[in-house]
């Protein structure tokens, strides 16, 4: 049984609780254990690096140090948290002075980070550690004919280069096919959702969201799958505001990939936190041939 240290990140406590629930449920079902880090703190989001880089590294290092104690790889479901932790770990490994300074601060919490932690994004656990094949084997309610737009967003594949193709990765598609869905190919799958701009530069962000939704809808997506709470909020919660802003009438559900996997594994909506969406998974106002209803068999 695979086991990982799990860093949920602030937004998964409430704003994206359904991501948390579905992540827990699906991994459990697939025989992967996620142990939530003891007393983790905020990763600093992007904003921290705006103010004080060192402080930002320290915040991430604290979580890394806690994870290191467990001796497990640490998994983050939020792309921003993942990116922050990944690069903090990388830099601390590379730069002794930085590590020394940061560890000096960590002493206050009786912690020390010596760089022996691998940081993974939750989706990597499904794409690599579990793998599409195993996933396929476990599926009980394949999402037959469901047209799913995989939305990678930014910080899962970027900026690392040694990863698979940073421009046209395929692992998300593989996961979707594995659970019986139809991964739709749309040009903006790697584009940015606007991130925190939704607050600081609203119009810009709304435009970006608009373009993304448009691109997905143009390619007949019935639902957009995300792997990041920030993206989910921007793409879903702000849909109505996009509509107000641009006179569009988007109404396309935006689900966490774990929720979709959960459905395919026959986990109940409640356990997956389905029902907290702004745009419900219920049949969406689209031409009949693209309508996708919930699988019958789900409990």
């Amino acid at each position: 049984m695979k086991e990982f240290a799990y860093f949920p990140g602030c937004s998964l406590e409430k704003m994206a609780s359904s991501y948390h629930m579905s992540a827990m449920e699906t991994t459990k079902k697939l025989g992967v254990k996620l142990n939530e880090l003891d007393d983790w703190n905020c990763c600093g989001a992007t904003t921290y690096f705006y103010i004080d880089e060192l402080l930002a590294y320290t915040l991430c290092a604290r979580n890394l140090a806690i994870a290191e104690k467990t001796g497990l790889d640490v998994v983050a479901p939020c792309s921003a948290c993942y990116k922050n932790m990944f690069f903090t770990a990388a830099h601390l490994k590379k730069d002794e002075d930085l590590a020394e300074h940061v560890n000096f601060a960590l002493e206050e919490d009786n912690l020390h980070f010596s760089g022996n932690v691998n940081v993974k994004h939750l989706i990597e656990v499904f794409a690599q550690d579990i793998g599409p094949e195993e996933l396929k084997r476990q599926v009980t309610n394949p999402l037959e004919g469901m047209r799913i737009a995989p939305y990678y967003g930014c910080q899962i594949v970027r900026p690392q280069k040694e990863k698979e193709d940073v421009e046209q990765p395929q692992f998300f598609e593989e996961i979707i096919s594995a659970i019986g869905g139809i991964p739709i190919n749309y040009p903006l799958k790697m584009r940015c959702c606007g991130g925190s701009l939704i607050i600081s530069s609203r119009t810009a962000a709304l435009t970006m969201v608009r373009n993304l939704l448009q691109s997905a809808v143009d390619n007949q997506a019935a639902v957009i799958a995300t792997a990041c709470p920030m993206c989910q909020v921007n793409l879903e919660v702000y849909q109505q505001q996009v509509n107000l802003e641009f006179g569009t009438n988007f109404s396309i559900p935006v689900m966490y990939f774990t929720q979709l996997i959960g459905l395919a594994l026959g986990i109940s909506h409640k356990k997956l936190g389905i029902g907290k969406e702004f745009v419900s998974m219920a049949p969406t106002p689209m031409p009949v041939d693209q309508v996708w209803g919930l699988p019958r068999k789900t409990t």
Partner: protein
Amino acid sequence: MTDTITFGQEISNLLHAAEGEPLKTCIQCGTCSGTCPVAGYMDNSPRQIIALINLGKKEQVLESNTFWYCASCYHCTVRCPQEINITELMYALKRYSIWKSRYQEGLIGPTFSEAFVKMIVRSGRSFEPVLAPSYIFSFKAREFMQEIQGATELLLKGRLPLLPARIKRLENFRRMIGRIIPMGGLE
């Protein structure tokens, strides 16, 4: 090495991961700007910012909104033919302008960031509601209403926390931060 540090060097020093002065190697090809999803909203495109820095035009750089528009999507970074980490550069510029507390009027970014940081220092966790005041009031009436609407709906869907989360070892945590920056600096 000249004894007087150029603006370019100042900025390069803020690029933690970088060695030397990467900006100097910019060939002004425009890949970054062409890639940037928000370049249209920036008064100077990322490429122009690099040019301005290399030119030593500190004022112009600090007055521009470019780096506050960066959503750190890293798309420019993975495409730059000179392997300049442009996103990190934008971070660096944000830090620089906050330290010098020099930024364009009416930008939400800086105030929001500071509010966010203060919040973390207090609780160790993020708590959306306290953030609102930092930006909400700068919104125009319509935006304001929309935000409130969105927020209430989130609340109803049980997606907004009512009480701020706190970490357990908050005291250690704050002392830890104290070793990095004097509390006064932020409180």
